[in-house]
């Protein structure tokens, strides 16, 4: 019992301070735990975190201008983009020198594509200029200002130079601004022309439609999950297979099946016309619009709502409802005051799953969305695979990610994330 009376640190049997001895023992345990999860950690880092981080980095990265035109960027520093005049000869000399190197390395067209996102026409301007610069002699052919203007009169346009100057920094907010329908100009941040504003609309629509899909999933899924949870296991297992059946069919097949059903010459319209509810000349438009997207996506995402609901409902004992009834509650009161609150964690889990899945969906909206039923992910896919504007795609993706995290945070504040149960 000397330890208790001693004022110094408590020692372990071998004389080491007990705290250090404990830390050592724990460290070994932690290290072993770390080694056990290391393969997964590395896998996730390499195949998931790193590409996403890389993609997000692209939303601000803008090395290309400075890398391709190093001397021009330096020379442009002295030029005032608001002056309304074209830069002087030294800038053109620097541009000639830079382009000569760039044409050799074939990077000038790449720069053209990049700057063309900001100002239409720079792509061909650089391609055209590149062909001519190749033949110039840096020593003998000076001065260059006139020669450039001779190649294309756009070089006498101060706006072209302003764009090069505004986007000459290594990092840019340009992609993010673009992603919220703003643009970066020499005179600061301005809203985009009205006929080019689309992303805010798409973000709002994506969130609105995802919420609609989520609520449709609750409305359709809740009774089914309730039924499944309260049937005899044999019957409910059979029904569960039917619920899961859509999982086993290809997404494209399912979406095409909706086309066959919903289109104007489709099965549903045929039946409605046949029974006389709809006039043959006024067949309902149920696809290639928001309705079609909501129907098809609700169908696809329904299992993600039913499964968590089902597994939560299974754990709610029948005695709660019985107790409520014995206490004098009608069927509805017993359900609404006693059963429903206890199934909320399942609704929460289902909502999070369905909402997050639908916010990032793009195949189904692309196929059945028409013009008003497409999501922001369709534009992201377009910029990643078609326009190659990866910076903008990354910025849009980053905003989408942020939106999901904010909604998740809000959910935690309002409902509480502890209140989410998958089973």
């Amino acid at each position: 019992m000397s330890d208790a009376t001693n004022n110094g640190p408590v020692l372990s049997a071998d004389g080491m301070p007990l705290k250090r001895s404990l830390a050592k023992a724990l460290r070994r345990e932690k290290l072993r735990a770390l080694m056990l999860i290391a393969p997964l950690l590395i896998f996730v880092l390499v195949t998931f975190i790193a590409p996403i981080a890389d993609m997000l980095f692209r939303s601000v990265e803008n090395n290309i201008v400075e890398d391709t035109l190093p001397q021009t960027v330096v020379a442009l520093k002295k030029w005032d983009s608001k002056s309304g005049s074209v830069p002087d000869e030294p800038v053109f000399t620097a541009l000639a020198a830079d382009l000569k190197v760039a044409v050799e390395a074939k990077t000038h067209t790449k720069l053209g594509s990049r700057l063309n996102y900001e100002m239409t026409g720079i792509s061909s301007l650089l391609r055209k200029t590149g062909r001519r610069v190749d033949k110039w002699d840096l020593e003998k052919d000076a001065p260059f200002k006139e020669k450039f203007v001779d190649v294309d009169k756009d070089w006498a346009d101060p706006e072209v130079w302003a764009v090069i100057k505004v986007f000459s920094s290594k990092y840019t907010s340009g992609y993010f601004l673009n992603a919220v329908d703003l643009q970066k100009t020499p005179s600061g941040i301005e809203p985009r022309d009205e006929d080019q504003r689309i992303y805010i609309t798409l973000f709002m629509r994506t969130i609105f439609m995802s919420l609609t899909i989520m609520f449709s999933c609750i409305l359709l899924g809740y009774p089914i999950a309730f039924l499944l949870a309260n049937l005899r296991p044999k019957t409910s297992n059979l029904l569960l297979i039917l619920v899961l059946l859509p999982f086993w069919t290809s997404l494209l097949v399912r979406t095409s099946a909706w086309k066959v059903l919903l289109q104007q010459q489709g099965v549903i319209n045929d039946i409605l016309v046949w029974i006389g509810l709809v006039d043959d000349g006024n067949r309902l438009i149920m696809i290639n619009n928001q309705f079609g997207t909501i129907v098809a996506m609700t169908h696809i995402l329904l299992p993600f709502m039913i499964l968590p609901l089902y597994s939560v409902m299974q754990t709610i004992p029948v005695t709660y409802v019985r107790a409520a009834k014995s206490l004098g509650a009608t069927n509805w009161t017993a359900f609404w005051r006693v059963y429903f609150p206890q199934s909320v964690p399942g609704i929460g889990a289902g909502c999070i799953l369905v909402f997050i899945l639908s916010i990032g969906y793009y195949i189904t909206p692309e196929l059945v969305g028409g013009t008003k039923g497409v999501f922001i992910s369709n534009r992201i896919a377009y910029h990643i695979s078609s326009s190659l504007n990866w910076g903008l795609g990354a910025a849009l993706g980053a905003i989408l990610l942020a939106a999901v995290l904010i909604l998740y945070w809000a959910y935690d504040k309002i409902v509480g994330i502890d209140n989410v149960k998958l089973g």
Partner: protein
Amino acid sequence: MSLKKTMMIAGTAMLFAGGAIAEDMTIVSWGGAYSASQENAYDIPYMAKNPDVNIIHDASSNEAVAKLRAMNEAGNITWDVVDVVAADGIRLCDEGLAMELDADTQLAPAPDGTPASEDFGALMVADCFIPQIVYSTTFGYRTDMVGDTPPTSVCAVFDTTAYPGKRSLEKRPINNMEWALLCDGVAKEDIYDVLETEAGQAQAFAKLDTIKSDVIWWSAGADTPQLLADGEVIMGSTYNGRLFSLIAEQNQPVAMLWDAQVYDLDGWIIPAGLSPERQKRALDYVYFATDTQRLADQAKYISYGPARKSSAPLVGKHATLGIDMAPHMPTDPENAKNVLLPNYEWWADYRDDLDAKFQAWLSK
């Protein structure tokens, strides 16, 4: 049996079987009937001639540009030859993702000795792009839904009084803007000058506005043929090869409108940054696959026109249907009376801008 002996036997067996271990070569194309036509016309004869090459097919052409850029950034290019549309070929060239070629030294001359550059002529739209076929984006219409006056002009698309019903258009500005201006009275040769101005763009959108509520927008090449077959649309734009198979192979009540169809090209690029031996093999394949006979052979399997002038006289009959293929070619003089030639360079400049405007217009 000793290991050494086993290996010797195995090695000898291989020698007899193929002479040497076959090298894999990955050729990327569009899949479906189009890839099948290339396989029949190019790959089978090429592998017969070069038993040491084993061709692997990959149907990734619709995302080739993005994938090539990703491969290039990762420094690991797994594709050897890639089939792309001309616009993508130009973009890949601009991005430095495709290799530049010299047509006259690296491609086969015509049988009469005409150099390749002349044989292809104006179709060589970029230094990296070797044209292969000419296709058209054109309109097909339901013969049973247009009444007694089948449409003869592309402007029937904009005439909802004479031809009421839905029409399908591709969900992008290219082609649609040109047709809109053409049918709004702009002369063919002035289209791009007009489209360059704000007013011209507004004019095109205004013309498209008149049919906006009647359009089903498509994004996959198979959409319009399906919509036509289902009777969902009265007319719709798509590739002429798709319409040919709908009409000739599936016998649907559909006819083709050869007016103001947009000429377009499809061809090969070789990715930049291949190792010298892979590059050599890729060039050898392209030399073979783009010669006069091979291009003519492809037309036996699909109704796209060969890109070489010298191939046109060699186009024969459809391999299974036995139809004479020449009248179904977009290059056939009878069909090519009024064609639109797309301005690739102009679109390279204006694509991003007009696409944003087009999407904004669509969602309004």
